């Protein structure tokens, strides 16, 4: 019985917090609150919300939730892709150079700005390529973006789902089956598993990209790659 009583008091707390109880009931609840720590705590948690209610406009509450147009996400992504194509190379390389220390940074930026003009010109016929690794084991996800440069190919790689600490060695292969190393990185669970690597093989010559991850090797064809900058759409919700 005691429990039922208590439950009744508790149910009155909503109306009490909102100031909607008739005076006599209000006085009774106030008297109960004097002696009931549990109800006082519950009341405090309701009062915060009750205090916000006057901000809301009931007419707006009854309007349906609005949704952005279905193609807005794709439009934003296209704009970002275009912007990234214009500035991405310079910006990303600048970040890399800064990583080597501030002293050479300013000179490096100037150099990079000059260098960046070259791949922009020659890169137009083969823009950055996005490669998706298909038929991976469940839970493993790998993708890579390849970008042509005068020195060869820059590879941005994203790996997830393999054991933390796994050594990943990345390579490109040409049509004759020759392998060109692109370096290695270690996958760390919970960290940004996004690595930037480079290989001496020209992107136009590359037919496959592969990763040795621990004792497994995953390979994806480069020639089937979808052009990232062609505006691969996203599913806007």
């Amino acid at each position, binding site marked *: 019985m005691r429990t039922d009583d208590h439950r009744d008091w508790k149910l009155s707390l909503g109306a009490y917090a909102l100031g909607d109880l008739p005076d006599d009931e209000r006085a009774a609840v106030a008297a109960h609150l004097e002696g009931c720590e549990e109800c006082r705590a519950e009341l405090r948690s309701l009062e915060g*919300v009750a205090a916000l209610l006057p901000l809301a406009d009931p007419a707006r*509450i*009854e309007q349906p939730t609005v949704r952005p147009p279905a193609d807005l996400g794709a439009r*934003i*992504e296209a704009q970002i892709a275009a912007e990234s194509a214009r500035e991405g190379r310079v910006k990303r390389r600048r970040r890399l150079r800064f990583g080597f220390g501030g002293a050479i940074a300013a000179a490096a930026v100037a150099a990079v700005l000059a260098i960046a003009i070259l791949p922009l010109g020659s890169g137009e016929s083969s823009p950055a390529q996005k490669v998706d690794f298909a038929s991976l084991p469940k839970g493993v996800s790998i993708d890579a973006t390849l970008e042509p440069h005068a020195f060869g190919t820059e590879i941005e790689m994203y790996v997830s789902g393999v054991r933390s600490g796994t050594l990943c060695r990345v390579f490109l292969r040409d049509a004759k089956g020759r392998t060109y190393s692109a370096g290695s990185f270690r996958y760390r669970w919970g960290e940004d598993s996004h690595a930037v690597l480079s290989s001496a093989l020209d992107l136009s010559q590359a037919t496959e990209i592969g990763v040795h991850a621990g004792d497994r090797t995953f390979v994806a064809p480069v020639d089937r790659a979808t052009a*990232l900058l062609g505006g691969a759409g996203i599913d806007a919700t």
Partner: protein
Amino acid sequence: MGALTRERDVREAYAAHSGELYGFAVRSLGDAGLAEEAVQETFLRAWRAGDRFDPEIGSLRTWLFAILRNVVIDLGRARAARPRVAEGGVEPSVEPLEQALLAWQVEEAMRRIGEDHRKVLLETHFRARPYSEVAEELGVPEGTIKSRVYYGLRALRVALEEMGYED
């Protein structure tokens, strides 16, 4: 995952938060076209400043809303500079922006709780109708109205907390 620097991060952020950002933009700008513009500009600014986003400091959602708030202020200024005729639809809100954001969150939270709870809170609290009258209209005992007010308020708190509210 750290900064919002890859296109894939932006895509994920868009999938998770565009609905709310757009909802608030419509409420504060009162115009669907301007709201679209605001959301687009928000994600572009987020992308450009992606290096500066630090999840240690605050959630992505909070950061995006902070950007949107600035975009809305900018668009509001631009609009004030060239007055235009209202095109019907939702009235732009006139409260200060912080308050508009909070108000929108409460309204959105109210939309998210169950229909029964929302209805009872709307009728008894917002429209100040007696519990007995609402009980009769809905064909339920008065005690049910009182318990729906209580559980409705609790549900509202949960919905607000999902949107980042803390007291």
